[in-house]
């Protein structure tokens, strides 16, 4: 990345050096600009959360619109900034100028009219193009095969419920990949348990706010299997920064397998019975659910299949024995300000409960 930037900088410098011939200068400037734009394009396409690298229909139609809007705005910029530059250079004060004031011109109705009408026409074009995308995205017909997921925002984590499948999970959303010829989009019905949040996975769709006492919907249809990243986009409190989103687009076979795993009640491995006792006899059960046990809390993420997830703390850190133990010991190790209290367990209990949670596949 830095190598690429160095090249662009070097090209830019080279472009400025030979000023002898105008044509040569223009050519090198073109190279410099090309280097810079290549560099930019590379950067913008590379990020896993770039709005210019769409992987689903809503993001793609927004991308198309944004290119049109960008092109029109860039043209206006070049024309007006060019005029400004020309005016400043052409009409600058020169030491040789006489003391006489330049001719005073007070205005011209024809000129005023032209620079009123032309912008109006541009706006008509922009508005019509925009309105089309607004309506096609917000009023898209919903296919029969669409999956419905209920998304509930919590202070610093996401709850996902699949009402028809009887699945409740957290922080890692699994959806089927959508084949454009036979679309299986996922509709998200969203609300919040506490403050405002916003669900934003840039490569899949624009963001939609998640607001308490209000139900919003949006849809996504990733067309390639894989992991898509995003994060909460509405300030929601101390740990707004670490309320990350992970969307897994699964192939039909993977998705069916995932559903089957999640529908099983939580595994009760005999090897982890001690940790289970620690879990069930501490305050854990007030906030967390583990299906098939007495833990029915709903303030925190459902842990029935915790070990099937790749991360904890809403995507903040990878799930492994060490991180999980440190998080239970004191969540502030990774998320200062998270609502889960430090559990103050003994080392022995901490190891046991970590071991138990790691068995919940």
């Amino acid at each position, binding site marked *: 990345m830095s190598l690429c930037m160095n090249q662009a900088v070097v090209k830019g410098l080279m472009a400025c050096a030979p000023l002898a011939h105008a044509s040569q200068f223009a050519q090198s400037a073109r190279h410099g600009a090309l280097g810079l734009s290549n560099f*930019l394009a590379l*950067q*913008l396409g590379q*990020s*896993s*959360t*770039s*709005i*210019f690298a769409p992987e689903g229909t809503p993001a793609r139609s*927004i991308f198309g*619109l*944004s290119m049109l809007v960008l092109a029109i*705005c860039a043209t*206006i*910029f070049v024309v*007006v*900034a060019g005029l*400004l530059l020309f005016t*400043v250079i052409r*009409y*600058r*004060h020169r030491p040789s*100028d006489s003391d006489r*004031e*330049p001719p*005073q*011109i*007070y205005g011209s109705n024809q*000129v005023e009219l032209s*620079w009123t009408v032309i*912008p109006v026409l541009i*706006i008509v074009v922009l*508005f019509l193009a*925009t*309105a089309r995308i*607004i*309506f096609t*995205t*917000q009023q898209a017909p919903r296919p029969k095969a669409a999956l419905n997921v209920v998304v509930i925002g919590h202070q610093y984590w996401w709850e996902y419920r699949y009402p028809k499948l009887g699945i409740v999970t957290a922080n890692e959303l699994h959806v089927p990949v959508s084949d454009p010829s036979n679309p299986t989009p996922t509709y998200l019905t969203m609300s919040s348990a506490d*403050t*405002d949040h*916003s669900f*934003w996975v*840039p490569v899949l769709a*624009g*963001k939609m*706010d998640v*607001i*308490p006492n*209000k139900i919003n919907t949006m849809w996504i249809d990733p067309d390639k299997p894989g992991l898509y*990243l995003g*994060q909460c*986009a509405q*300030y*929601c*409190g101390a*740990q*707004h920064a670490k309320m990350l989103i992970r969307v897994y687009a699964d192939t039909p076979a993977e998705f069916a397998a995932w559903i089957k795993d999640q529908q099983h009640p939580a595994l009760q491995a005999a090897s982890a019975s001690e940790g289970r006792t620690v879990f069930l006899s501490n305050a854990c059960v007030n906030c967390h659910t583990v299906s098939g046990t007495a833990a029915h809390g709903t303030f925190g993420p459902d842990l029935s299949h915790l070990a099937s997830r790749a991360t904890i703390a809403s995507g903040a850190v990878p799930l492994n024995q060490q991180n999980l133990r440190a998080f239970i010991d004191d969540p502030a190790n990774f998320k*200062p*300000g998270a609502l889960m209290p430090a559990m103050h367990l003994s080392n022995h209990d901490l190891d046991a409960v970590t071991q138990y949670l790691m068995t919940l596949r």
Partner: protein
Amino acid sequence: MVTQTPVTSIAGHAPASQHGSRAFDVVYDWITTVDHKKIGIMYIVYALIFLVIAGIEALLMRVQLAVPNNTFVSPQSFNRLFTMHGTTMVFFVGMPILFGFGNYLIPLMIGARDMAFPRLNAFSFWISAFSGFLLYFSYFAGSGLYGAGTAPDVGWFAYAPLTARVFSPGHSTDYWTLSVLLSSIGSLGTALNIVATTLSMRCPGMKLSRMPLLVWLYFVTSCIAFIAISPLSAAQIMLVIDRYLGGHFFDTQAGGSAVLWMHFFWIFGHPEVYILVLPAFAFANEIIPVFSRKAIFGYPAMVSATVGIGFISMGVWAHHMFTVGLGPGANAFFTLATMVIAVPTGIKIFNWLATMWGGNIHFSTPMIFSIGFLFQFLVAGLTGVMLAAAPFDWQLGNSYFVVAHFHYVLVGAILFMIFAAFYYWYPKMTGRMLSERLGKWHFWLFVIGFHLTFDFMHIPGILGMPRRIYTYEADRGWAIWNMIVSSGAIFQTIATLIFVYNLVVSYFKGAVAGPDPWDAWTLEWSTSSPPPSYNFAKTPTVESRRPLWDLKHPEEPDTQYE
């Protein structure tokens, strides 16, 4: 005070203490003054102090964000920093500095001896000043409850229900609410004063159609302030009722509506942008013609465009809410309304260009800042058009692209014009010129810093970086851009230090300005620098928009053409 002239006592000065020291007299004089010029200067100095404070807050945030997973400040401190930075810059820097210039200049430009209501003017200033101190007092007194924070941390638009007592215990939010409410009262008082002054205090011959454009723009700004600030004040009172008297306006846990707060806030918040930017346009309307040596091009079009912006600005607020789940009809309406505002704004840019076209452009410091303003305001307007396209906003809204966009307006356009205004009117206010050499250093360093920071800030937004996060993941490709953005802050800091140094040193050592250092055309340049407390010994009479042009060019006065 022995030398006090009869005229100043007529103007309303309380006589100073008979037996106090000289220092006491000076302080007493400033505290009790109702002179619009002194109140204007106090507004400006007060705003400059808060500009430095809020600038330091911005610097701390940029240090934190320079590299991913930084731990320079805690999440809680970071959230307070951006809340205080935003609130301070809008309510305790932007509004007071612009009202300060308005206070100082409007009576001078319309040939009046003071504002229409001098005592209301002093009241407005002091209540605004108090509200700023109240906000910062929260750092000492905001906690109130175990576990509660100190300074407000709810963001400058304080979305419900984060402000409810369950999510914001203690008193930090109360400090925010009450200080914003009090500053709104001050702003309403000043707005009322400006409207009354423009309508009733103009000197003989100054018809509305001959009023300097600066005064016209301040008039429209004040009318907008009237309409826009009232819902903000109402919302603050409703919030206090929610928090302490069991109301449920915004309390979603009890059936209230978070979206209602958004409507209340943004029906203030968007016109607020125009309350801040119209005075910047006002400065440009005075400065660009003088340094191009030409009359403003299309005066009637400029006035109509301003009034047009005033009206349209009332109907665009929900473009801040494209992502809250409005229907497609509402989204389309607010897209259109927002794009329409580009038309009168474009008219202004073209008229400024046409004013410079065919002129004789002098690159004095006020003018180079104005040229910077023109360029940057063009960019800010165009990114505004992008954000107006609702689907584009579904991606860019609440991202760093938005942060870059509105800083382009607030810094690139408004702050640049405020700097220009300083260089232009400081000689009038103090009788001394600011150093041109330091002014150019200030300009170039600030331009470099501004573009490093705010040009590159658009990119992490496009790459999916939301605003108001205290840190970010290393694997998103945002790090290099944030490093560049933070490095620009260094240049801006140095430039600002040079500016403050220039203000202080020039006050004592600057070249003597004389009444009319820029060879300008409006009435404030017809009196001495600084003007006497009664402004004009004899009430002036005007016959055109540029009374001093007529005096200087009797062979071709403006009166022939208007």
